[in-house]
């Protein structure tokens, strides 16, 4: 790294230093901002006894389940909307309205229907991912050139073969770009839903600690939520998107 870029690390260093020396000079209750070493030891404890790993595993499992349910409904429906004008005209206003009800507003109703716990959380994630994927499926399928439709049809393709030869591959790039956005919204919905309706998971761990003023745990939760998302986005979704867009997308060499 060039020296001139290294100055970008100064604010981080300054913030950590301030965090470390502030308790020596300013008198404030330690629950407002626990000393840095406390957070560190708490992190080591939570790693050692497996509580952190357990919450992370629960959260990720729910995200995967919500993703499966959401995309499982969104992709067939999206294809139907993109291919059939009557379906599109009939459903669009209703879906637009349902989409504008932010996923988080569904949580209290989900609690009534599914109780506190995994059911409510997965419902909310699936709801959020459903709308993001639906939108991208419609766009992706509609972007397939009409000439290709005619070509496949004139060669006798219809139904399943049309879907597997033309529609799914044709919409794939847009779908994968959409997955990344969907997961970004899904992760936010997951954390928020766990805070209101969870019985475990990272969001629950964080909000539960607020009740007891265990600020170390709150900070740990925030860092884990931020870091896990960053890792998923940069190490999984971004490479997948890059590879697929280069291979099948509009970028031509």
């Amino acid at each position, binding site marked *: 790294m060039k020296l*001139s*870029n290294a*100055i*970008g*690390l*100064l*604010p*981080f260093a300054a913030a950590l230093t301030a965090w470390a020396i502030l308790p020596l000079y300013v008198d404030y209750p330690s*629950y*407002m901002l626990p000393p840095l070493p406390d957070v560190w030891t708490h992190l080591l404890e939570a790693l050692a006894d497996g509580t952190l790993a357990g919450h992370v595993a629960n959260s990720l499992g729910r995200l995967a389940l919500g993703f499966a349910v959401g995309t499982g409904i969104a992709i067939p429906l999206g294809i139907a909307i993109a291919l059939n004008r*009557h379906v599109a*005209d*009939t*459903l*669009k*206003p*209703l879906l*637009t*309205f*349902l989409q*504008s*009800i*932010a*996923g*988080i*507003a*569904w*949580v*209290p*109703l989900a*609690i*009534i*229907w599914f109780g506190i716990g995994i059911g409510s959380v997965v419902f909310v994630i699936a709801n959020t991912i459903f709308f993001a994927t639906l939108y991208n499926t419609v766009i992706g399928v509609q972007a397939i050139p009409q000439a290709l439709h005619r070509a496949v049809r004139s060669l006798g393709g219809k139904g399943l073969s049309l879907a597997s030869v033309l529609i799914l591959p044709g919409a794939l790039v847009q779908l994968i770009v959409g997955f990344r956005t969907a997961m970004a919204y899904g*992760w*936010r919905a997951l*954390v*928020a839903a766990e*805070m*209101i309706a969870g019985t475990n998971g990272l*969001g629950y761990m*964080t*909000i539960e*600690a*607020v009740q007891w*003023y265990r*600020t170390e745990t*709150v*900070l740990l*939760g*925030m860092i884990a*939520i*931020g870091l896990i*998302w*960053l890792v998923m986005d940069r190490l999984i979704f971004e490479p997948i998107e890059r590879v697929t867009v280069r291979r099948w997308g509009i970028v031509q060499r």
Partner: protein
Amino acid sequence: MAGTLTQTPPHGVPWSRRLMRPAKGAAGILLFLAAWQISVPLVGLEPYFYPGPADVWAAFVDLMRKGILPVYTVDSLSRYGAGVGIGIVAGVFFGVLIGLNAFASKLLSPTINFLFAIVEVAWIPIFVIWWGYGYKTILIALTYVVFFPVLYNTLIGVRTVPQPLINAVRALGGTRLQVLTNVILPAALPGIITGLRVGAGFAFRGLIFAEIVAAKTGLGYLIFEGAQSHQTARTIVGMISVGAIWLLIDQFYLKPIERATIERWGLVTDAEQRA
């Protein structure tokens, strides 16, 4: 002109098709409501578990007559307006300030990228510890949610102003202030609008969430409290209000601003329009 010939002009759509589309859309919504209402006696569950459209309408009338819904709506909107307003002003101000100064830009960019990357709902618990349950926490959370997308996109907008443009205005005798108002701000405007759009969406979700967690009034509270007290029809009135308000904000506020900016300063150049 060649480009316009290949497109179907909007007037070319037959009027019957133009009427059919909203008619089908209305039919879709009516069918949904009818299926919902008919399913209520068939399902036969407790009304708190599965209220029908008639129950929701009754709850709506009740909430309107008691004045609860208007008051909560105003509460929510004023929180939203204040948070988004402060967030935009601060985001643009610091975005321009940092973007114009190469040193500040190098110093602060990694920090901004880092904070932008942290999912904003994760901040709400620590905000609650610092500022308690209530208005202050909600306002700070909304401001935060709007601030970073606006800052980030303003910064990108300012950095992409071509240096020759700045040099040209300076050579023609323009002052630094004139460069700012006539070159940099207009050039950064599409970025600012992008940031505003992203931020406004996140902030609206953030508002509902914050009101569920940390408020005693507002539409988020109505949704939460209705479910808590088993007045589920009230929850659904709250959800419909939230959806309708977001649609209105999007249709009559965000989209027109976006359209106006992109037409005026955005990617559509004179050359393209004349071609």
